[in-house]
């Protein structure tokens, strides 16, 4: 691989779609002819995907950031729809008054040069500052398929009993009847395995929220993108001790998340003689 390779930041911009189009050819020519360079590009792609996962799994955990992300997506989606009638940009304001006395072509060339230079400098500068944000918004096929793969793996792992974990099957009879079920658990129970029948023939991914003691309180746990198997949702929830648990199950994409199906059950110590199912 020759030493006059494009810088990593330039390749990164290319992969993220923020590099000016006129610079694509040089990278693509090398990409298609130089195997070692193609590997280098792949390694940067892998890094971007790593960052994407970090953003997904860490940065986006706080609800406030998730709200910001949703808001930014709506803002972009809405405002970019108006591209057919773009808000005009007053290019003339970029030229200092003294320059307006120059011949028109000189002013145009000057402005273009300033524009190109500032764009190039800015592209490099903003690449660093915006990196995380851009990565979060970049939904490449690879990232999605990797994410899907990880989710599938997580889902299958979740359906397997974990060593050292005292999982308890809450049972399939837990239905949306409004009744409260009482279940016995030993003091070393750490998690509860829930099997929940879903009645739709073609079910979209589901989301589940768990609240403890206070049905309107902060969610103790949640999970998105749950896929039913044989019309049954299986998931493992954390056990926080005896008390009332509230589950809200709803379809992903349903804005009225509060209108999802609600389930509740109480837990008590296993030796409680008054226990009944």
């Amino acid at each position, binding site marked *: 691989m020759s030493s006059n390779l494009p810088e990593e930041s330039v390749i990164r911009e290319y992969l993220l779609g923020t590099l000016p189009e006129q610079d694509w050819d040089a990278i693509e020519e090398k990409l298609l002819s130089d195997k070692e360079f193609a590997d280098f590009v792949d390694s940067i792609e892998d890094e971007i995907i790593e960052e994407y996962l970090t953003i997904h799994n860490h940065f986006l955990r706080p609800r406030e950031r998730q709200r910001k992300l949703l808001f930014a997506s*709506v803002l972009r989606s809405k405002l970019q729809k108006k591209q057919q009638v773009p808000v005009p940009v007053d*290019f003339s304001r970029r030229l200092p008054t003294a320059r307006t006395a120059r011949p028109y072509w000189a002013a145009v060339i000057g402005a273009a040069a300033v524009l190109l230079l500032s764009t190039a400098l800015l592209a490099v500068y903003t690449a660093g500052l915006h990196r995380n944000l851009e990565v979060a918004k970049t939904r490449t096929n690879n990232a999605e398929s990797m994410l899907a793969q990880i989710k599938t793996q997580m889902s299958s792992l979740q359906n397997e009993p974990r060593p050292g974990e005292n999982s308890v099957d809450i049972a399939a009879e837990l239905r949306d009847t409004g009744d409260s079920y009482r279940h016995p658990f030993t003091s070393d129970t750490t998690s509860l395995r829930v099997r929940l029948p879903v009645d739709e023939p073609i079910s979209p991914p589901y989301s589940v929220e768990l609240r403890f003691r206070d049905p309107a309180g902060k969610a103790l746990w*949640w999970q998105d993108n749950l896929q039913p198997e044989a019309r049954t949702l299986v998931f493992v929830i954390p056990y926080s001790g005896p008390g009332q648990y509230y589950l809200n199950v709803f379809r992903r994409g349903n804005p009225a998340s509060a209108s999802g199906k609600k389930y509740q059950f109480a837990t008590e110590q296993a030796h409680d003689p008054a226990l009944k199912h």
Partner: protein
Amino acid sequence: MKNRWTLTPDAFNRLLAWLSSDREEAGRKYEEVRQKLILFFTKRGHLEPEDLTDESLNRVAKKLESGEMNYSGDPRRDIMGFAKHVSQEDRKEPRPDPIEDLPVPYPLPRDRELLFRCLEQCMASLSEHSRNLVSRYYQEEGSKKILIRQLLADEENTGMQTLRTRICRILKPLRECFFTCIEKETAN
């Protein structure tokens, strides 16, 4: 991308003959070109690299069939030219809705109408200057976005960082207004 023309065996044979007079060599070159096109479309971030590759090769085959393309020169260079056109066209196609596929683990409302309605309501409460600033700040994507933000900073007689801070200050109450609106609407 709409493809109204399908590759006939004759057209395919003509394409192979164009790549090489030796049938075996032509097959090898075809596969090599195909793989490179898939790589090209993948790296450009297209959703369906294989489909776009086929579309590019079909266009070449169609051109060869119609006799509009001569048999001289480097076929791979010509094919790349077609691929770049296909890429350009595909980039103009509407993108998938980012709201539907937000990578957030926590449930949030995704009813586009409701979200847009709330945003419009809240945007209307901004001053004209702020509304204009936010609209233009978010009107472009990719490399154009950087350009337009630099122009905005110039118009505001400020630097990029200050512009970002200004936008952030406008967005904060706008976001609050937006979520209050959603909560109100979903509570009804």
